């Protein structure tokens, strides 16, 4: 069952120096109970895409295309309808848990506020019962409810954020670099927790990260973004075994893990989003660039089963 269906999504920000196109005609699908890993480097538009799903981008952003979720098109939906979805059908957890909880509010208040926002008539006892349930799921002692965010460690704050996201059993969880500011051991703890919760709650998860290792360990499907475009999409095993897009290849080569013997990197610098290169934005750094690459952006093709790629090396 397709949970989330994004088609032709464009997001651009207005800026003094002209529009910045952060996401360009992106197509993505997430099935229920599946983790889609969205990988890319800083500034590639992956975070913008995640926030666009819940439509919490700043006023300077323009969104076009379609995002079908829970029987609605989130691009055209009105604010009140979107508000009902946020935190209820779809939740978002962020990169830096240290700054995502209001420092002046106790943890209890965060939960009460959330529950009352969606169910104004909920009584406190019932709300607390539900809070206890999710806190148990993320292993936070419920007797710490009356503490303030600064009294918790980074990992615990991220657990609280996850608990907040789980209160209404959402069908979709967008996790935007959920462990980037955490240490490796805590990172692994949090991701294992997310994985078990995903199975328990049967959610679809969009895992946004720059770390290919995490994608390999926790995602089933993956999409690679570069300069606003989805360069390549497919099942994680297939993409790791046989990366099609030269950027994916480069990215996989530059991963440093315990078995790396030689250092590899992609030449050049990430593109300037204000003045992206013409045609395929990767062509200035691409080892197999051809004259055609500078012309127009390559069409998305389907060279293998379940795989799509946007590159002239794979004509339709």
């Amino acid at each position: 069952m397709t949970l989330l269906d994004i088609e032709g999504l464009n997001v651009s920000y207005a800026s003094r120096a002209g529009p910045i196109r952060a996401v360009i005609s992106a197509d993505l699908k997430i099935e229920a109970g599946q983790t889609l890993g969205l990988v890319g480097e800083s500034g590639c538009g992956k975070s913008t895409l995640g926030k666009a799903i819940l439509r919490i981008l700043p006023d300077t952003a323009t969104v076009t295309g379609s995002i079908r979720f829970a029987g609605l098109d989130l691009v055209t939906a009105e604010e009140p309808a979107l508000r009902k979805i946020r935190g209820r059908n779809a939740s978002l957890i962020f990169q830096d848990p240290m700054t995502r909880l209001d420092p002046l509010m106790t943890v209890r208040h965060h939960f009460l506020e959330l529950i009352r926002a969606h169910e104004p008539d909920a009584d406190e006892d019932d709300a607390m019962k539900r809070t206890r349930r999710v806190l148990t799921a993320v292993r936070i002692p419920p007797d710490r409810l009356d503490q303030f965010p600064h009294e918790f460690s980074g990992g615990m704050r991220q657990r609280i954020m996850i608990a907040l996201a789980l209160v209404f059993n959402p069908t979709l969880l967008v996790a935007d670099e959920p462990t980037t500011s955490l240490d490796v051991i805590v990172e692994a703890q949090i991701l294992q927790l997310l994985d078990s919760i995903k199975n328990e709650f049967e959610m679809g998860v969009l895992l946004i990260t720059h770390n290919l290792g995490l994608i390999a360990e926790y995602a089933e499907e993956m999409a690679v973004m570069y300069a606003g475009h989805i360069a390549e999409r497919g099942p994680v095993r297939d993409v790791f075994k046989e990366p099609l897009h030269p950027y994916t290849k480069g990215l996989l080569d530059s991963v440093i893990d315990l078995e790396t013997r030689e250092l590899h990197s992609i030449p050049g610098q990430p593109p300037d989003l204000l003045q992206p290169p013409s045609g395929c934005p990767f062509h200035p750094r691409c080892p197999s660039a051809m004259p055609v690459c500078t012309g127009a952006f390559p069409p998305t093709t389907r060279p293998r089963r379940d795989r799509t790629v946007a590159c002239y090396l794979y004509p339709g």
Partner: protein
Amino acid sequence: MPRTQASLRAYVVQRLLLTGPMVLILLTLVFYFLRAAPGDPVGAILGEHSGPLADSIRRQLGLYDPLYVQYVDYLRRIFTGDMGNSIITQHSVAADIAQRLPATIELTVASMFVAVLAGMLLGVVSATRRDRPADVISRLVAAVLYNTPIFWFGIIMQLVFAVQFRWFDSGGRLSAQFAIPPRVTGLYTIDSLVAGQFRTFIDAVAHLILPALTLGLVLAGFFARLVRANMLQSLQADYVEAARARGIRPLDVFYRHALKNAMVPVSTAMGLTFAILMSGAILTESVFSWEGIGRYIFTAISNRDYPALQGAVVYYALIMVFLSVLIDIFNAWIDPRIRY
């Protein structure tokens, strides 16, 4: 991680304990700066004369004593509530101040009210409509208000509203036809209500409007800038975005998260602004013939009335200490991170 429940009560006790040394330092500074300023009270009273008369007055005022003797004497007097007699009015300084203090309190509280209301309004409007016409206009208004000399603004207010339109009187606290209401607090607005004299109340408020607007609006300019800057920061904070992502209503996000967090630095600055308000009161009271401490200080300075000046400044200083304690406690109450 060991749990340290930060207690508000412990913080308050600690803050109050610190107030003692703070007052002492402040009193010492007041004493020291008044002594370091050039000029001699006796010379000011008697002109450039010197001779046995001047000498005896100096001796009487203790000006020939070594400074530390004067200092100890000064502290002893303050703690016994005796500030000496004013050289000019010959009354006891303490009595003079007690008589004038309510007028100043009435003025500053009303001005603060105007300042907070107008400042918050301008600031919040500008922050929520960033870079749109409303923001540009309110920023312009704030900048103009903030940079207006207070005495000039007062005179213009008088010219426009008292002389031209004759809506208000140009000065004083009550019109001549009303009797001063029986003293309870010394604030005419409250006293008249207590006494049930409603017409007197209206008149007292009418007299309060111009000076309070003058003083309040100038401060409002400062406030508006402060509120705007802090609101912009808290509106962009990560927890505000996170709250939106949880589907919290925009109005709730605004008040419960953004505004509340912006208030922490703003309320600290508010305490500091009170100092500006007090110094502004000196000018405002002079322009509007308002018989308060500000005017008392003004007269005292012009006449080198050391005891009076010293007494009034000490009063101001004590009020500032009191306010800063209040603000600190308020901040600790809303922000748990402050309570160590």
